[in-house]
């Protein structure tokens, strides 16, 4: 099966082998994770051994081989966020989404992950959703924030 999305991404980079990471990132942006078929296809189309591709995607934490939700919620557990009570915020998010860390909601809308520092300690407790930062989080801000990403 030839997937046109994968071919389109590879063509965008003219099949440049040196751009493999960018290509995989773009494929992941399409599917929210890296499906096995897409990796096999990219490996064949770009003439890169599948073992190299697999080695690379298992090395970087940013790549996921498991299906992920449409929105990625990253909760900062860094020192500054920790002392400002991010644990309660994380707890509230877990209850609202009914998932634990590293898990994805059944409707594939949200994936929840924790990170160790996002470099925005001044606005902690910090939560990042799809690359957008939300500072000074509190438990009562959680549900309205998640509602924005339905």
């Amino acid at each position, binding site marked *: 099966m030839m997937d046109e999305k994968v071919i389109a991404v590879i063509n965008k980079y003219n099949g440049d082998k040196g751009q493999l990471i960018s290509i995989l990132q773009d494929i992941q942006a399409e599917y929210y994770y890296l499906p096995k078929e897409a990796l096999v296809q990219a490996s064949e189309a770009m003439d890169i*051994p*599948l073992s190299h591709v*697999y*080695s690379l995607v*298992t090395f970087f934490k940013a790549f996921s081989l498991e299906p992920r939700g449409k929105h990625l919620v990253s909760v900062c557990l860094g020192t500054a966020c920790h002392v400002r009570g991010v644990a309660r915020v994380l707890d509230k998010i877990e209850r609202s989404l009914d998932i634990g860390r590293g898990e994805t909601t059944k409707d594939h809308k949200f994936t929840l992950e924790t990170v160790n520092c996002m470099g925005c300690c001044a606005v902690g407790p910090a939560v990042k959703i799809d690359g957008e930062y939300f500072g000074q989080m509190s438990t009562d801000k959680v549900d309205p924030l998640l509602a924005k990403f339905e």
Partner: protein
Amino acid sequence: MITLSIDGRELKAEKGQTILQVASENGIDIPTLCYHEALEPYGACRLCVVEIFKGGRSRVVASCLYPVEEGLEVKTSSPRVLDNRKMILELLLARCCKNKVIQELAAQMGIEQPSFKPEYLEDNDCILCGLCVRACEQVVGVSAISLVNRGITKEVAPPFFEAATACIGCGSCYYVCPTGAIKMEDKGDTRIIHNWKVEFKLKKCKVCGNYWAPEKQLDYIRDKLHLPEEFFDVCPDCK
């Protein structure tokens, strides 16, 4: 030409050679597990550490990767080197506490028993030196296996931990592995490499009737070198 000294001996070397290469050419023994002359040096096992002296300072470096320099002074078994090497072996022994090769190397360094508590010992055979992965890529040219995951979960595996579809059954990984971590056996007309979950039919020699090499490997070589169809019908012994 570069002049350097290793263990007090004045030696000549070509530019671009590594300390390990120059040492072994001159019969100076430096232990190593991850070096193979047919492959690019990789610096994974760290056993080949030596102490180098220049500009009044000394450093411990991996000799398999360090290119020789004019006037470099190298010591392959100074107290500092032996300390380092001993620690590396302690760690390897903790990972592979039942592996014969590692046990013997450790014994040579005077380590009879692992120094770590029993609960920290692992019964692993693979030291993650990457020789199999590199041989498969650089010599065989198929890259059927690779290093997967990272940190404490790193291991050598075929893609997706499934049967290695690219593997041609040549067994280079098995032959090059320094610790015997790869399990391969030829049973009748079949070769099995257990680690990569693959089986190959072996080719029968038309003269002696022995099964002598995997058909897939012979097809691969024939394609690569444009050899005639019947080239491998007879085994090398009968030719």
